[in-house]
């Protein structure tokens, strides 16, 4: 569990100071490594709320929320099919 908190701490740091893709990479790792990693969805939404445009213009203001939700579901599907979580990553 402490590993999960440590990762959450680093994600907060990445969220504020690092390029977006570093934060995304850490979240994807977390989604694979921990059960029910809902931080993934939380940070996707927070990113769009803080950094995304507030209205639909040239850019989709919920691009990362949408992408994050799809990736999150795919990871859950992969994990349940390959049983990765139970075999390797549970702490």
């Amino acid at each position, binding site marked *: 569990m402490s590993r999960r908190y440590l990762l959450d701490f680093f994600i*907060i740091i990445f*969220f*504020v*100071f*690092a*390029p*977006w*893709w570093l934060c995304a990479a850490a979240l994807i790792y977390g989604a694979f490594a921990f059960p*029910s990693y*809902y931080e993934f*969805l939380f940070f*996707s*939404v*927070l*990113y*769009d*709320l*803080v*950094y*995304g*445009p*507030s209205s639909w*213009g*040239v*850019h989709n*203001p*919920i*691009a*990362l*929320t949408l992408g994050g*939700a799809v990736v*999150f*579901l795919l990871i*859950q*599907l992969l*994990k*349940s*099919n390959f*049983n990765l979580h*139970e075999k390797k990553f549970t702490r």
Partner: protein
Amino acid sequence: MKSPYLQNRNTPKWYRSWTFAILALVFAIVMSPARIVTSRLAVLVVSPVWNVGQFAVHSAESFVAGFKSNQALLSENRTLQTDADLLRERLRYLDVLQGENNDLKSLLSRKRDTIFSSTTPGRLCPPTASAIGAKILLSPAQSYYASMLVDVGEGDEVGRGDAVYSFGDIVLGTVSDVYPSTSRVVLYSAPKVSMSVSLGKAHLSVSAVGDGDGTFIATLPKNVSIEVGDEATVQAEKPALLALVEQIQTKGDAAFKTIYLKSPVSLRTLTWVYVDRQISTDKTPTCLDDTY
């Protein structure tokens, strides 16, 4: 016969009602009108972290510089680098102004006031009192949306649509959202953003499309004369340089050629900008020290 692994496989969890309930909540937050409120709240919560982070980085730099016993040299070097960047930008801008000045003189015999922001080493001064200096909290290189966040907001009378310039008077973008103490700036060079510019010595009116990281793409007929280094200026009341022609590409017998433009400003290293507010004031411009 199935392997024990497949027999013991857990029921897939990805469709659990919990996940979908949370996903529904997530979309309700970001899609609804409440987004404006939640967005303001989120920025309000994250702002202190930015400030603490910037302070921490500055403190760490000072601490390390103190040990090296050449802090003065570092500081001077930093100031000179900022000045050199500004001068480089201005040199480009000067050509635009000179060309325009000649055109105006020949057509109207009208004298135009200087619009340069004035700077002295280590000091950055906006050109007018309506302009306000701002520190970049989030650089476009960090953001997925190629936007940036600056540390001025409603409290500084910044409004939506205000133009944002570098201190070398290169136009960068406009303010898209204003929060109590911060604002979001959408860059003209953000992907897919299209804008009308005046290109080259002939002042051709073309549409330049943002391509990210301070670059733009425009398309022109093959027979139109354009050279590398020609300026693209924004067609507005205040003449503002946007980018320079970096590369011209013509493919075979195609009737059109592709023009690649690049802003003279390095967005990755930019730390200060100024916002040209739509307010009238008689005050003198407030200058900034080029330190934290």
